[in-house]
């Protein structure tokens, strides 16, 4: 048993946390730049180089893996599967399929119309829309790399619970009349989806890696830059005063700041990591990350084209309140995770 635990922890340290890279960058900073990593400047440079390389490696590998898996679940197929389930089962399945169906805010509209016109309950569609940007395999592995298995698991589970409950509430509120009228006028059309060959899946996955890196590299550098600044330049006392454990409004603040920001989990993780090292509560950090990934201005603008303001407001409120509750709960029970 002991050997297995040791092997596992070695794999986790070297492969996921990439300790070797940290050591290597440490050598570079000390021997080549002649700076101490324990000092401010050296520490910032170490954080910046190490985190940038680590995130880009993880990004490439993870996007490749998830894209390969996602190629088995095009939204056309998800739509058909979801059509067979009713009630809470539908919500649960919507939330689960949301984690494996490829999604970006630009495709939320066609997916919304496609699902709705196929007769899927509104709640199921919303369970899907909540979980899709919030939880996927990439976020799970990324969180595991930076914060460990327990936090990663807890994040995925509460994310799915939020999606199921959020969708169920919207279902119970009978919001159908707040969907733009033209959506109901669209006929349900099933496109034949052809099964891809393995080579096509690999090509698709490679293409996704290229496309996503093109799209997010700037946000990642920005995120790592902010992370490095928090890590070494902003005094602990300032951070503690604003979002520390003694500020009861910390979670609220983190959520509200996170919501309008449009970035994916790869851009937010270095900021989260730096805040974590500064002693900010894990719940506060999770609220920030969920706020950033689940809701953003572009996605709200997109959704406003298919749903009326009232439903949009309810959707945003449910997700926001859910994220805030999750944050306070994580802070209250943080002793379990750390």
């Amino acid at each position: 048993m002991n050997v297995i635990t040791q092997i596992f922890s070695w794999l986790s340290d070297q492969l996921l946390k990439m300790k070797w890279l940290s050591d290597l960058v440490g050598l570079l900073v000390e021997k080549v730049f002649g700076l101490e990593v324990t000092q401010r400047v050296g520490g910032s440079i170490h954080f910046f180089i190490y985190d940038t390389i680590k995130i880009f490696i993880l990004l490439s590998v993870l996007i490749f893996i998830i894209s390969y898996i996602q190629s088995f679940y095009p939204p056309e197929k998800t739509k058909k599967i979801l059509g067979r389930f009713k009630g809470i089962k539908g919500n649960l399945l919507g939330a689960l399929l949301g984690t494996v169906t490829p999604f970006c805010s630009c495709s939320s509209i066609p997916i919304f119309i496609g699902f709705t016109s196929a007769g899927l309950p509104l709640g199921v569609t919303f369970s899907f829309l909540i979980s899709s940007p919030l939880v996927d395999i990439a976020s799970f592995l990324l969180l595991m790399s930076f914060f460990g298995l327990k936090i990663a698991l807890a994040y995925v589970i509460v994310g799915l619970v939020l999606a199921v409950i959020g969708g169920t509430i919207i279902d119970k509120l009978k919001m159908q009349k707040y969907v733009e009228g033209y959506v109901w006028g669209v006929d349900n059309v099933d496109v034949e989806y052809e099964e891809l060959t393995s080579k096509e899946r690999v090509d698709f996955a490679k293409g996704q890696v290229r496309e996503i890196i093109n799209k997010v590299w700037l946000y990642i550098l920005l995120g790592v830059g902010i992370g490095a600044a928090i890590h070494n330049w902003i005094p602990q006392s300032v951070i503690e005063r604003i979002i520390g454990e003694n500020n009861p409004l910390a979670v609220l603040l983190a959520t509200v700041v996170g919501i309008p920001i449009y970035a994916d989990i790869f851009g937010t993780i270095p900021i989260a990591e730096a805040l974590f090292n500064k002693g900010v509560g894990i719940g506060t950090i999770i609220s920030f990350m969920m706020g950033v990934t689940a809701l953003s201005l572009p996605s709200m603008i997109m959704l406003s084209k298919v749903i009326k303001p009232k439903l949009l407001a309810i959707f945003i409120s449910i997700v926001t309140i859910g994220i805030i509750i999750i944050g306070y709960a994580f802070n209250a029970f943080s002793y379990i995770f750390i």
Partner: protein
Amino acid sequence: MVIKVLGSGCANCKKLEAHAKEAVAQLGVDATIEKVTDFKDIAAYGVMRTPALVVDEQVKIVGKVASVEEIKNLLK
């Protein structure tokens, strides 16, 4: 024939349109290429991933930028 490129104007949609034009030019077939940017019209084809390519009202490609060669094969 009528070729429609479905997409809300993202970079990939423009790329697919360019590939379609190139394919038509190389084959020398008589075809008009139209753009469909309205979400309602896109959804009416049952398409949930853009860009998509529709040839004579039949959805041929969904959610990827097909190469010029692929499109040529579709048009033959």
